[in-house]
């Protein structure tokens, strides 16, 4: 990560001398980590409780998980969510990687404008993007209706298109970082050894930026799974997505079943972050 040379100040406890600032800093850290993890732990624990309200511990049971897998609405929403996340990840990773290559490798007029357009989705609040896409889809559907008489509804496709639009920016950012760390001389070396530009890309460039691309893809997948706001605005009736379904149930009441599905979502996120960390370690 970084050099330890400038790390002159070691924790007070390490130096064998207890100082107030050292102790209070450690105590503070412990409390913050408790604050960060207590709710998550509570959630996991209460997904195994017998209590029907899911807020008290009255004994261990796996009933809620069983019930979960028999809940067709939740299962359907889960499948929808995974589908949207997979497709949007695939498309946004491809488009984003190509764009990152263009931005890192070429000088062209209007580059600053494109740059701004790429970063804007990262900084525009989700809700603004959501209402804009809602208005846009309504307008397009009205136009199609007027022209062809067809009545279209918002469905998984509209959500997927929207997810691609905001995922792509994150992919571009991540892939650009790995392209910037890539030594261009390796490409010259490949050309020098007789590889044409196609061979150079697939044999040298691609394998070396692959961790970055996978990192970007994992980020896109996570964002897509987590997204609630855009999904809420853009998914049509009957095509529920998991976060939207969870939200609508949570607004009504806490149930252990929701605790259970939340726990599973948590496990998935942790798996994904572990994967991305492993990839970074290998680099």
């Amino acid at each position, binding site marked *: 990560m970084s050099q330890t040379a400038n790390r002159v100040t070691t924790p007070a406890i390490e130096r064998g001398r207890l100082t107030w600032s050292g102790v209070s800093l450690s105590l503070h850290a412990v409390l913050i980590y408790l604050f960060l993890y207590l709710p998550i732990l509570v959630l996991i624990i209460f997904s195994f409780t017998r209590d029907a309200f899911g807020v008290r511990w009255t004994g261990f049971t796996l009933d809620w998980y069983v019930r979960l897998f028999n809940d067709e609405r939740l299962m359907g929403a889960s499948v929808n969510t995974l589908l949207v996340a997979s497709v949007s990840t695939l498309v946004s990773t491809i488009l984003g990687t190509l764009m990152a290559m263009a931005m890192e490798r070429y000088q062209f007029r209007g580059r600053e404008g494109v740059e701004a357009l790429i970063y804007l989705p990262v900084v525009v609040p989700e809700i603004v993007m959501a209402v804009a896409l809602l208005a846009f889809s309504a307008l397009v559907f009205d136009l199609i209706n007027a022209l062809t008489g067809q009545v279209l509804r918002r469905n998984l496709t509209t959500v997927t298109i929207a997810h691609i639009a905001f995922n792509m920016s994150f992919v571009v950012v991540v892939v650009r970082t790995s392209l910037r760390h890539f030594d261009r001389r390796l490409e010259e070396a490949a050309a020098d*050894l*007789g590889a*044409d530009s196609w061979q150079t890309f697939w044999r040298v460039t691609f394998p070396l930026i692959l961790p970055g691309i996978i990192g970007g893809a994992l980020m896109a997948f996570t964002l897509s799974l987590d997204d609630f706001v855009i999904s809420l605005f853009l998914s049509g009736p009957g095509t529920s997505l998991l976060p939207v379904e969870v939200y609508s149930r949570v607004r009504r009441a806490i149930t252990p079943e929701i605790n259970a599905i939340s726990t599973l979502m948590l496990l998935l996120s942790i798996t994904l972050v572990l994967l991305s960390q492993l990839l970074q370690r290998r680099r």
Partner: protein
Amino acid sequence: MSDTPAIELRDVIKRFGETPAVDRVSLQIGDGEFFSLLGPSGCGKTTTLRMIAGFEYPSSGEMLIHGRSMATIPPHRRPVNTVFQSYALFPHMSVEQNVAFGLQMQRLPKQEIAPRVSEALELVRLGHLAQRRPNQLSGGQQQRVALARALVNQPEVLLLDEPLGALDQKLRKEMQLELKSLQHRVGITFIFVTHDQEEALTMSDRIAVMNQGKVLQVGSPTEIYERPTCRFVADFIGETNFIDGEVVESDGGYSSIVTPDGLRLRGLAPRTLPAGSAATLSIRPEKLRLTTLEQAGPEQVAALPVSVELVSYIGSDTRITVRLNEQRTLDVWEQNRRSTLDRNAYWQPGEQALLFCPPDNALVLAE
């Protein structure tokens, strides 16, 4: 050996923006030659090499490899291979895969690739490390992998871009000898870019000294050192004393100059210089002779009375700064041929002495 040069550059110019990085360079490099491009950083030597490799294209001028124009040939179709400054080994491939890469690009059958790869690795004595990744190797080993990776393709010309720059002093010396003997064995033309004059002198058959995009002089190491044709080359290669003055007399390949402080010195003149023109006399410190007043015998050359000012003993040599007058000092190196601890065997500051500047050891260069 064919009479067509391996590499020929004709009036090659390369501009980055407005400023020329390489300015009207013409070179002919023969088959099997060990040729060095020597110059300070930013002199255009690396750009010249990159144009031969095909990573840059000349803004104008022609470049031929064995008589073929390279104007439209991309790097991957050129019969040259490069050893890069930082080696540019593919980090995701083993040593063996790195070396095999070029042959795979030529679409050679597998059974032909394997023996050639191991041959090349044996050539650089790395057969035992074939399965390692580049980052598991030392700098010297990486350097040899880069060599094997280039040589295995049997290029017509091997380009080396400061390949020893990243190595420590001792390893550098070793690799210089190894490279030289390797070149003898494989007989390929080597073009070697370096800013280290000692390295260039040690290894090259011929050297082109470059500065500010121009080739100033091309010649053998001896020619470059003993007969530099301009002030920059004399200054850049080795060390020298410069004495500025005005030409007063030229005859039979010699010129005499007179300095503002009244010294009159004679030296070899590569070109006949008209009397009255400004010129510089260059004489290397080891070619000046210093004697005590008593030793002064009947000499051909006028002796200049000097006083010893600084004496540095550096083991093989003693380096002495002598003062001629208020304004002028010169450096004189004497080899310590005799092993002795006798103080009197060495010069002492403050001593009076006589300095001889033999005309055959000095060069008169035009400004």
